């Protein structure tokens, strides 16, 4: 038999609450308890509000560049719902919903984008890493974080998020390969939102799906509707269980869409079709969930209004917390360079001089 089959595979696409409001009762059963859904809805309303206000903060000069999350709320939230407190969220920059649910104070994210590293001081006990600016690099840290849990035999795991663009970076490949080869407890979730700034996902890969990126490493792969909280929760729960059981990593492609500009520094109208945007606005995950919950009697207009109002208040409070924090000390950026500041750095900090003569201390700023 000169031509035989060397390898064969197929990848599932999972959808539970589809864009037309149809819900798959079999798969959807017991995924998320009905009791929990109102709190989830409140959280989503709040996160969307914060996201839209952050945009305005940037426009009014009160914040630097900000990447909006709107439209991509479900994948990371599903991860947060599927994991435990001891597990790790290793994200990029469109995962506010999941990070906040996992315990990250929203002030942290605002401070980060206000150009203040104190926003990256994740509180002790919150197992999350800060915003990853260089694309595609954080997945290796997730592999290591998960590896450490495996070494310590804690049972904890790591879930890492990244974009479609990020899967083009070599570090993505090395992270997935390390995790699979060493059977590390890690879940890889690619948020395929169609774009990497102005570059469509078709340039990032000639493959039919991003899910098939995981085949290279021999790990289970799945594709899901990233705008469907239930589908995302199902694939996350499966992947988390597999990781926790010591069976290694899973690759998830969450098919979603960036409903706003790449960041506030971007203008998507330069490169993006209005029609495409409209199609995806109709698939907006929030209204989809809301309509279903209202139909099921789990949510109503007055609850929504209440959520909007309390969201607004919370957002206002968070912004004032972030804005009213005392300015950092002028030489605060020396303080955490090393556990012990070397003598030469101490001199630089104290003199605010990199020049070295120092015979005229009265010149020092």
């Amino acid at each position, binding site marked *: 038999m000169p031509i035989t089959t060397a390898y064969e595979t197929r990848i599932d696409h999972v959808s539970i609450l589809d864009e037309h409001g149809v819900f798959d009762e079999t798969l959807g059963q017991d995924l998320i308890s009905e009791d929990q859904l109102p709190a989830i809805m409140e959280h989503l309303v709040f996160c969307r509000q914060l996201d839209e206000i952050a945009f305005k903060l940037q426009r009014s000069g009160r914040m630097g560049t900000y990447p909006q999350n709107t439209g991509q709320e479900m994948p990371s939230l599903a991860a947060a719902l599927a994991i435990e407190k001891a597990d790790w969220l290793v994200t990029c920059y469109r995962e506010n919903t999941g990070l906040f649910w996992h315990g990250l104070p929203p002030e942290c994210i605002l401070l980060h984008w206000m*150009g203040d590293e104190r926003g990256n001081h994740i509180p002790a006990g919150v197992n999350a890493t800060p915003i990853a*600016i260089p694309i595609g690099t954080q997945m290796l840290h997730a592999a290591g974080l998960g590896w450490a849990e495996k070494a310590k035999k804690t049972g904890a795991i790591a879930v890492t998020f990244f974009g479609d663009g990020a899967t083009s*970076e070599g570090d993505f490949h090395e992270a997935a390969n390390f995790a699979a080869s060493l059977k590390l407890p890690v879940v890889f979730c690619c948020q395929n939102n169609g774009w990497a700034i*102005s570059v469509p996902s078709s340039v990032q890969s000639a493959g039919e799906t991003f899910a098939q990126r995981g085949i290279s490493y021999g790990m289970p792969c799945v594709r899901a509707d990233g705008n469907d909280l239930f589908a995302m929760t199902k694939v996350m729960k499966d992947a988390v269980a597999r990781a926790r059981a010591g069976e290694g990593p899973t690759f998830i492609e969450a098919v979603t869409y960036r409903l706003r500009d790449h960041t506030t520094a971007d203008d998507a109208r330069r490169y993006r079709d209005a029609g495409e945007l409209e199609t995806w606005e109709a698939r907006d995950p929030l209204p989809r969930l809301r309509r279903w919950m209202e139909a099921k009697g789990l949510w109503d207009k007055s609850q929504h209004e209440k959520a909007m109002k309390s969201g607004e208040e919370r957002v206002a409070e968070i912004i004032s917390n972030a804005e009213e924090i005392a300015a950092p000390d002028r030489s*605060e*950026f020396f303080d955490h360079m090393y556990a012990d500041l070397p003598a030469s750095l101490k001199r630089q900090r104290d003199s605010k001089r*990199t020049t070295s*003569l120092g015979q005229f201390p009265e010149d020092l*700023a």
Partner: protein
Amino acid sequence: MTTAANETEMTLVQAVTDALACEMRLDDRVIILGEDVGLNGGVFRATEGLQAEFGADRVVDSPLAESGIIGSSIGLAMNGMRPVPELQFEGFMGPAYDQLCSHAARFRTRTRGRFTVPMTVRVPHGGGIHAPELHSDAPEAIYAHQPGLKVVMPATPYDAKGLLIASIRDPDPVIFFEPKRIYRAFREAVPNEAYTLPIGKARVVTEGTDLTVVAWGAMVVEAAKAAEQSKASIELIDLRTISPLDEDTILASVEKTGRCVVCQEAPLTLGLASEISSLVTERCFLHLEAPVQRVAGFDTIMPYYKLEMEYLPGPDRINAAIDETLRY
């Protein structure tokens, strides 16, 4: 200001675009690749309009992978093309470090001349624009330490156009750093035609007799402000090329002035200022009235933007060094 008919007033970033357009019209081996360089014209709009003029085969949106961009550019360059890859920010040169230093820099000598890498890597450089982490670094010393590369950094629109065209025509790999803080800081008249400025030649911005200040990129503007505020007669040198250094211009100036201050954004330790200091000391020791002073970023990570102006040297810190050197 009057502009001649064959000149246009433009900003530094416009001069970059103009240089690319001029050279692409003249040489169809020139090909641009990088992230968002196509329809979007680059995140700084440095390639604006080029895809429309030259097509998607010559202005190519690549996958998001810096090593891929540089590694494939090396192959293009080895095989008769003149690639001009763009890396979006200097903070993202890291993933391409190996292809730049283990390959681009080495192919000519590795193959004793059979293969060469006439590639020009464009990279926005430096701080002061209120950007996120890793969008404000100054890594020029890293690449100047690598034999086989050339490193160029203009400080004016006129220089940007002439040096970029010279870089594209250069038979060896050039890292072309663009000082993003002054991308749009001012305009000047730039000839409409293609022209080149020599790589490896510094520019004496202002002549002076008391002290030599050496700077490059956006620091030239800060140093010029400092010189203007100073009571001393400052000779300001804009390096233009970081590697190879124009030793003659620097040494001739310090021989005349006997004093030297070097300004850089990068951390102090092992920055280019250290190289210039040791060079000047070795070669002008008996002319020196005071040690060469370095004004630099601190040996810390460039802080997020709330504190970036605390980090970057400005006229105050430069003048403190000038004064101290004069009084030595």
